[in-house]
């Protein structure tokens, strides 16, 4: 969809044209789904959250000023919705070795003993270990680390997606990284 087509759809959608709303839904769906699945809070259904974001966007088209591209505006709504959901979750202060599965403990052992990258077979365990480490962070810091290190977005892209300033992103990333380092060190100390 080109910018002109999006603008036309938006104008028709604001007037209540169902066909235009449907076109916008299909246009934004892949973007919303990708963001929600990457930042999905635990115990939350991705489909429910995607639906919630899409309805929010479709119902508030009149609030879109056009100062940023439509998909950026949609991203901010998606990110804020995910953040609000994550805020309801309890934060775990730290991960202990006893909380890890055998595979996750093996990942730590590999990281500490060998300088090589992890095998593809260890990807799932690495994923779960990262999730456990991230659970100790504040919701916004957790989201930022996921966007930065797991999705591979740079500071500028994160600023567009979240609406946060570049300085705030850098400060948050630094603080979150320090927390992660501390949690990881605690795990390492427990490893025999």
């Amino acid at each position, binding site marked *: 969809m080109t910018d002109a087509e999006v603008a036309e759809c938006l104008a028709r959608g604001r007037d209540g044209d169902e066909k235009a709303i449907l076109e916008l839904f*299909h246009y934004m769906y892949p973007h919303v789904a990708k963001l929600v699945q990457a930042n999905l809070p635990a115990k939350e259904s991705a489909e429910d959250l995607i639906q919630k974001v899409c309805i929010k966007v479709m*119902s508030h088209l009149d609030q879109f000023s056009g100062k940023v591209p439509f998909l950026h505006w949609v991203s901010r709504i998606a990110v804020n919705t995910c953040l609000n959901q994550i805020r309801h979750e309890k934060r775990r202060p730290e991960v202990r070795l006893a909380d890890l599965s055998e595979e996750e403990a093996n990942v730590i052992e590999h*990281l500490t003993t060998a300088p090589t990258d*992890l095998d593809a077979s260890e990807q799932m365990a690495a*994923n779960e270990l*990262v999730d456990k480490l991230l659970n100790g962070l504040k919701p916004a810091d957790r989201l930022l680390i996921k966007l930065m290190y797991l999705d591979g977005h740079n500071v500028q892209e994160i600023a567009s997606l979240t609406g946060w300033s570049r300085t705030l992103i850098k400060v948050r990333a630094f603080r979150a*990284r320090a927390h*992660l380092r501390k949690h990881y060190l605690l795990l390492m100390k427990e490893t025999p």
Partner: protein
Amino acid sequence: MNPIDDQLNRLFRAARKPDAGEFVAPFGLETRAMAAWRAGRLETGSWDMGVLARGLVVAILIMGASMWPVLHKTTTDPLSEYLQASDTTLASDETP
């Protein structure tokens, strides 16, 4: 680079999920989203309860303001009538 940072970076690299490819809306999601959008439009098109409540408050205020002089007069009347009566009595006593 700090060895801890290096290990964390390798951990993040391994945890990166491969691109899930094309996202297609699952069956039913589109219908549910459109139904919710329609319901939202119907709600905003019908009576807005907030406006109704504000209208009620304004009406009560207007009623109160218009009744205030009457109520005020009623509460002050007995004293003023008493004083007026006293004045009348005095005046009538001094009448030659």
